[in-house]
Structures are given as C-alpha cells and as structure tokens.
C-alpha cells in the first residue's frame, strides 16, 4: 500500500470520526451518549497517530503514544462513568439539562 494514499484515506476517516464525536457532544442530551461521543473522538485521534506513524515509517514512536492515550482514555471513561452514576442517583435522570445546580 502506498503510504501517502493510505494516509489520505485514513485522515478522511479521522476527520469524519472527529466530526461525528463533536456533533454528538453538541446534539446529544444523555450523559452516557456524551461519553460515547468522547470515545469516538479519541478513536479518531488514535487512528490519526497510527496513520501518521505508518506514513512516516516510524511506527514504534506512535504506538507508544497511542498506548499512553488508551490508558488515559480508560481512566477518563472510568471516572466519567462514576460521575454519571452519582449524578443519576442524585437527579434520577441521565438528561444533561437537569444538571442546573450551578446555574443561577
């Protein structure tokens, strides 16, 4: 496979993943759906890093960065889900519009 051609196709999908996640963050009201949107964004970033490593013929550096990214991603998901469960216990809903305690 030609590296620059593969890179081009990969970056098209990266742009798509990033925009899908971004628009999910804007449109969706459910807290779990917002977290899924963040996950989609992160997958776009991972693909961009690995594709860049493939195109520059330096895969090891990008793999180590992606491994760090995945560890950070899991920590973010775990903490965010713990927050979601606590908020659900408090408000009885997953709707982000009900979180108005700090609004005045």
């Amino acid at each position, binding site marked *: 496979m030609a590296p620059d051609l593969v890179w081009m196709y990969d970056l098209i999908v990266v742009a798509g993943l990033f925009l899908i996640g971004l628009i999910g963050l804007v449109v969706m009201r459910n807290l*779990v759906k917002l*977290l899924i949107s963040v996950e989609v964004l992160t997958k776009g970033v991972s693909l961009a890093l690995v594709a860049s490593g493939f195109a520059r013929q330096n895969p090891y550096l990008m793999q180590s960065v992606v491994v760090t990214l995945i560890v950070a991603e899991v920590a973010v998901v775990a903490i965010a889900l713990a927050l979601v469960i606590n908020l659900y216990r408090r408000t009885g809903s997953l709707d982000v519009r009900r979180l108005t305690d700090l609004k005045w």
Partner: protein
Amino acid sequence: MLALHLALLTALAICAAMAVLLADLLRAAICLALASVTLSVVFFQLGAPYAAVFELSVGAGLVMVLLVSAIGLTRRNPSENEEEGKSPLLILPILALLTMAVVDIAAFAFMRGRVAIAVPGMQAASFADTLWRVRWIDVLAQLGIILVGVFAILTLFRKEGGVFHNSKLQAPSPDPEETHGS
C-alpha cells in the same frame, strides 16, 4: 489490500456513527465496541500490533464492560429517547463527513508529490526500546493517571453515599424558582 483497508475504514465510520446516533444505549455501546474491534484490525494493517492489542483488549473489552455496567446501574427515561430521535441536527454528521472528505481530498491532491512524508533514519530499534528509553516519562505519566483514576473512583463510590454525601446539594429544592431566585 487497499480495498480491504477502505472497507475496514468504512465499517469503522459506520459503527462510530451508529454508536453516536442510536437511541438505545446498549446497542450504542455494542456499536462502539465493534468500532474498537475494526480500529484494532486497521492498526494491525498499518503495522502497529502493540497499539492494536491495546485497542482490542482495553478499548473493546474494558471500556465496553464499564459502559454496560453503567447502563445496567441506570435507567433511562423513555421521553429522552424520543427527543433525541426527533432532532433535525442528526443529519449534520453526514454532511460534515462529506464536506471534510472533499476538503481532505483536495488538500492531499495538492500536497501529493510536494511534501516528503517519510523521514529516513528515524526508525527506532524496537517498541520496547521506544517506550522504555525514549518515552519513559509517558510510562510515569500512565502510572500517575491510573493512580488518579483509582483514587477518584474510590472517592466517588465511598460507602457514605458518593460525592454528594457531605455537600449541601444533597437535598434538591422542590421548587426551581426558590433555588434560582435567592
């Protein structure tokens, strides 16, 4: 080979879009796991087996388990589903994807042959060499991130009742005007 790669990228985009757009949370989580599996195969194709294994085990496995556990511990209000399903903005991801694809293809058509993307002499000895010698500070950061995650979850799920236990936010006001007006 390129056709398979394109098919995998298409499947990845479709699974990710379904994960965001599907109203049912469990199906959305399953679509996200499928997207992770597809992404790990793409990583294997791009010559990144370690990242692929991490994505498969952690991205598709652990995150899926966490999401399904959280969905099982919560119950969704059916009216929220209908409201999201009726949103006219859901067409935006498709339009945005098409727009970005056109812009991306035009940019790469302009850059192709003008920019050297492969830099000779940058090849490291191995993945372990890169991770433990070049990016050793990342490993320390990973340890820190894991510790922060563990302590945060322990704090959020302590037995006294969670993060809002000692807070004044514990008892929500029944009248919103009373809270916002004062």
